[in-house]
């Protein structure tokens, strides 16, 4: 999907604004959103990212990072967890009628879940399978395909058609394009590919490395 999220190389965004002594979270609601994502609905990063990418482009640019997450969780609670949308609307109606909606959220604890969750997020998962049948070795010249028509892809527009050099083979990973399309078992080698700025932007000065799945690439010829 060539969506609004794919901003690499877009011009007109202005300066990078840095906040001094920024807290990890700015608002309590950001904490709740962050925490809610660690549940069955947020566990699939591909579907989660795709839910954000489908936001209305104007809303995407006008809202903050954790509003994107909120949108995604609301979307996946319906799409992935099967909660009827009316239930969300009804909860909003109910809570809109009370003076402090946050205080009116039911409190329900599951101490065992919490312990298991914290252990899970701070334990390294097993390494990815080595790519024993990778098509290209380090040093190979590859071209990114011009056309990626998946509903969800991790191949940004700014490298489409560009030629780069394989720096490393990172292992075998689930292909996000297939996963979001309903085939979570398709796996492919992922390559770290180095591009010269001249090739990407027509002016030299730096190099950019991207990690790209095998089906995004073709022989540079």
């Amino acid at each position: 999907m060539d969506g609004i999220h794919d901003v690499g190389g877009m011009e007109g965004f202005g300066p990078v604004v840095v906040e001094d002594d920024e807290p990890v979270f700015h608002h309590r609601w950001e904490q709740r959103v962050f925490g809610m994502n660690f549940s069955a609905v947020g566990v699939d990063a591909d579907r989660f990212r795709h839910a954000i990418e489908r936001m209305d482009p104007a809303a995407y640019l006008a809202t903050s990072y954790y509003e994107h997450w909120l949108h995604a969780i609301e979307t996946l609670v319906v799409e992935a967890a099967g909660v009827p949308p009316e239930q969300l609307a009804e909860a909003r109606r109910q809570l809109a009628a009370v003076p402090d909606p946050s205080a009116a959220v039911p409190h329900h604890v599951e101490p065992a879940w919490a312990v298991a969750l914290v252990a899970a997020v701070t334990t390294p998962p097993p390494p990815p399978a080595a790519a024993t049948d990778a098509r290209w070795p380090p040093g190979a010249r590859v071209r990114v395909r011009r056309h990626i028509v998946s509903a969800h892809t991790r191949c940004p527009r700014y490298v489409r058609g560009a030629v780069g050099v394989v720096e490393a083979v990172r292992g075998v990973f689930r292909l996000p394009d297939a996963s979001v399309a309903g085939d979570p078992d398709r796996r492919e080698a992922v390559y770290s590919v180095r591009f010269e700025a001249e090739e990407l932007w027509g002016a030299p000065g730096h190099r950019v490395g991207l990690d790209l799945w095998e089906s995004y690439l073709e022989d540079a010829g």
Partner: protein
Amino acid sequence: MTAEGHDSAPADIELRVAALEKVMIEAGLVASDTIDAIVDTYENQVGPHLGAAAVARAWVDEDFRRRLLDDATTALAELGIGGVQGEVVVAVENTERVHNAVVCTLCSCYPWPVLGLPPAWYKSPPYRARMVREPRAVLAEMGLQLDPDVEIRVWDSTAEIRYLVVPRRPAGSEGMEEEDLAALVTRDSMIGTGEPRLPS
């Protein structure tokens, strides 16, 4: 369903979030204390001090440095560092001639187990859009003036590999202990948008 306005007032957002939490709790999808616990984890336990400890170790222990550059995921696990959004970590080392910096143009991927959660600027469209196209200008704006001869390598985190920049050990830090060295290693120096502090 979720056509939020472009200028969601705080009260609207809080209402939406409260309603979502209510629905998720009632559906058994999440519990109040799982949210509390995960927030505490990333507010108070996991943060850039972990990456800083690893960098300081690499500065003082040549064998660890080699292991870190060879397979950061495994080397970090030696220090008890690892987890979600760090399934595969690759460490890239700055030298006199090469400066590395990290971005995620498509969303905001970031090596949580070593750096904690990303700052707002890292997640902002200006940084994501510009860093792959004009990194030297962006770094200069952020206060990092690089010598024109230094090659910039930008790593766009498009897959599940997360990058940790190993900054150069600052001049004047020769006799320092590992723990004091770690205090010099800033978050931004491990993203590649800053340098370590100088020894005082």
